[in-house]
């Protein structure tokens, strides 16, 4: 069965700086991601994976090439349209959770729900995230894993088409990282969102449908994983 192409990255180039200090971060990237796919962007530091994620997220722009989502090219959108695009289609999860310190868990998730006309049921989501008992706690009363769960909740409560995860386990210990990965896997299966996760941990690619290996701003390998394993089975 061929999956529907949802996200297209076509010849995307990006450089920073000028003159001698100019540094090309992306040098013509090409790949596609299907709807509902769990895609991992894998690469070492400086390979351009976060930059690419930011361009897909519409918070940075490509110097050349384009990104299209469901046929809409981001480069044709002005700032207002990009905001609307992010509002409607995207959920973001960062390495540092960036929760609002004086809102409790439930309220932080409501911040995401506010953006959607048809948000997921927050109570049900809290249960799914394992945060029901902590829903009235402030971020500083939570562990790193709980905070990351909250930030995932905030990202997916609006049921986005794409969930962008930038090193979501980068600041977590081994066990908590696995819990978070399991949660993302569950979310992907339960809600069918397309997930694009940036990581430098090669082990994580084993749970993905699709892995894009990046180095020096180029796609080195584009692997479709026919034998993916569950997050709980990952080891590193």
């Amino acid at each position, binding site marked *: 069965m061929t999956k529907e192409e949802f996200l297209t990255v076509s010849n995307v180039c990006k450089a920073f700086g000028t003159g001698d200090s100019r540094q090309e971060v992306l040098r013509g990237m090409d790949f596609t991601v299907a709807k509902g796919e769990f895609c991992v962007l894998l690469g070492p530091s400086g390979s351009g994976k976060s930059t690419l994620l930011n361009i897909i*997220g519409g918070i940075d722009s490509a110097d050349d090439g384009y990104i299209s989502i469901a046929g809409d090219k981001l480069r044709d959108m002005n700032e207002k349209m990009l905001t609307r695009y992010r509002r409607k289609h995207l959920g973001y999860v960062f390495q540092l959770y960036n929760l609002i310190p004086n809102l409790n868990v439930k309220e932080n998730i409501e911040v995401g729900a506010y953006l959607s006309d048809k948000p997921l049921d927050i109570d049900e989501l809290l249960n799914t995230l394992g945060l029901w008992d902590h829903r009235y706690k402030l971020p500083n009363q939570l562990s790193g894993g709980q905070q990351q769960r909250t930030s995932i909740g905030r990202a997916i409560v609006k049921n986005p088409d794409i969930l962008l995860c930038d090193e979501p386990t980068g600041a977590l210990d081994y066990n908590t990282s696995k819990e978070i990965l399991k949660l993302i896997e569950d979310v992907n299966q339960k809600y069918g969102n397309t997930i694009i996760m940036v990581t430098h941990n090669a082990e994580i690619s084993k749970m993905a449908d699709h892995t894009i290996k990046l180095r020096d701003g180029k796609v080195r390998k584009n692997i479709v994983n026919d034998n993916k394993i569950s997050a709980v089975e990952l080891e590193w």
Partner: protein
Amino acid sequence: MRDPMNKRFLREFAKDWKKNLALILLMSFMIALASGMEVGNKSMLKSIEASSETYNLEDGHFILKTEGSDALLKKIEEENNLKIYKQYYKEVDQVTEESKKAAEPDLIRVFPERTEVNKICLMDGRFPEAEDEIVIDRLHAEIRKINIGDTIGVDGLNLKVVGTIAAPDYTSLFQRNSDLVFNSISFDIGFMTQAGWDKLNGSRKFEYAYIYNDEPSNVKEQKKLADSAMQKIAVLAATGGYTSDLSVAKALESDPSSMVALQDYMADMNELMDFLPEYANQAIHFAPNDMKKDTNIMGIMVYIFIAILAFVFAITTSNTIVKEAAVIGTLRSTGYTRGELLRHYMLTPVLITIVSAAIGNLLGYTLAKDVVVNMYYENYCMIKYQTYWNAKAFLITTLIPLVLMILINFIIIFRKLRLSPLKFLRRDLSTSKRKKAMRLPRVGFMNRFRMRIFLQNIGSYIVLYVGIAFVMLLLAFTIGLPETIEHYKSEIKDNQISEYQYILKNSKDEAGNEITTSEETAERYAISSLETISGVHVGEEVSVIGVSKDSRFVKGTEGLTGNEVLVSSAFKEKFGLKNGSTLTLGDKYSDETYDFVIKGVYEYQGGIGIFMPIENYNTYFGLDEGTFTGYLAANAITDIDVDNIYMTITLEDIQATAVQFDRSMGGMMDYISVGCAVLAILIIFLLTKLIIEKNAVSISMVKVLGYENREINSLYVRLTTILVIIFAIGTSFLAVLGLKLLFKLVMYTMNGWFSGYISPLGMVKMIAIMIICYLIVMVFDMRRIKKIPLADALKNVE
């Protein structure tokens, strides 16, 4: 779904409750003052306005030499389409415990009870019922410490004071309308029963109040009717009601045989002694006119104050935005619009302003209004007032502060939020392109360290500079206002036209002889009043003064011809007049206009006036040759009968406006000074707090390295101290410029002209207050630095 971010408001508020409460209290205090001023002032004015209905205020009054016969009075009513009410009074001595201390007894003008016109307002006690009872003016009673139940001597009789009153036709106690200053101390008014009044021995004054049957629609019509009525009443009185036509009366006068025609009118003949239309009655209009000046300055000060607070809010919010950069980046990347975040961050200042405006207005309509109203009651004999809802107060105290708050916060926060989501995520909020460290001069390490701190925090120090500039402006106002008035008083003392100005009732005495004086310094002059019809203040009263060509008092008019004039320096400054240009002035009571060519400036700050030779004056205004209004003199004139003098103007009289201005605003300035000092402390506290918070990690790091608090203070606090002193000195000059500019704007809305002034000592005071306020804050800053934990430096900072 409601924006969940709004839930942060109360938590944010609670987190910084001390600061927020201080801001609310300060803002409420200032708004309460402005609201109280505006509401008290306007309610009082509106009540005075309404008094023409409530107390049936006269349209004017006149005094006849003897009691007017019924026939004469009827004729006057018919000829002028008005209704007359007897308002006789007796002006007699009043002796009280207080007045005994003075050389002369007080004077009281006693009326029998009034029931139809100029009805009196009982302020306390009751109306007289017995013959030996009297009610007197409330303010005079307070000044002379006369209480209800006391007995006072009136015209030799012992009368019991049973109440205090205010009369709508005596809101300030002018004994004569020609007096420049009212006299609540030794002049009083009182009311008795008719029977009690009859028993007073003093001679009766036959005053008649009148009210037009058809109410005139404006002042011009009032003036027209009054001019006509005065002439008709004078002629009717002189002819016993035979005619109101002046030409007929003159014809009769020149024809002795006509006396036959007047035979039947002999018994009704009388003489008009005084005629005073309501619009020209100082006792009615002085107080409200003076009160109308009061609220302008207060409004400007509130705006400065709110602008400062808005600035503080905006800077605090900017700091919050810096702290929450990553969260903002996340929210922006998930689709929150800049507008949503802008609204979110503006919510706190806007809500605090609304809450403060509500509290301020509540206090304004209650406590502060009473302070203002009491201030008026201490100066004037005001009737009872009613509190009126005031749309302008709402505008000044709620809408404009809110708009200011929104505007200033919008500009600053919008600029901050303009950055891309990525920059927020990276916490890179600097807009500076500079990446390399600046080379510093070869000075000691600690000084170089301080320079680095300065360069690194230059933005915050610029904000501190702006904050100090705002506070200095407010300080300039509070210190400068009394100084401006003092300066004005001394300035007009130094360059008044002459020590004495006499305005005569007529240039000829009863016998038809020209009134002269042997006073060597006296010289004739003419004066009249016109008003501006264009420029910065339309309707400004302009004195047109005609002086002798070789005047010792006003020099420089000798070469002027036709309608050429010198303008007073105050007039030139206020209206920006230029030599050679044509000045057009209008008559307040008609549509006539007069053109004058400006030929120069006469150095006179005491008033808005123009000067020309008296001969040109008479020709230009179509007056007979030799006509004059009075005398200017360096010494008092003693050989003119006081009955012929309408008015004497001395230095004290010219200074009266400034004194009154000082009295009404001076009290407020004390309150504002306190608010100003608190605000200065608050602003410096907040701004230096921001700097320390911004440098918390660096401070923690130097602590880890082994620096002592004393050394850290010498780095951070000493730098701030040096800068605060430099900023205070630097901004003091700006603040004085600001004071002058704002004072100009205020004076454009009022009659007269004082230019804003602050002495070098005043500037030193401003700087000293600022530094003292900072020294208080410095103690808190040092404590804050001491409290920064060493762990801050070891935290994971992305």
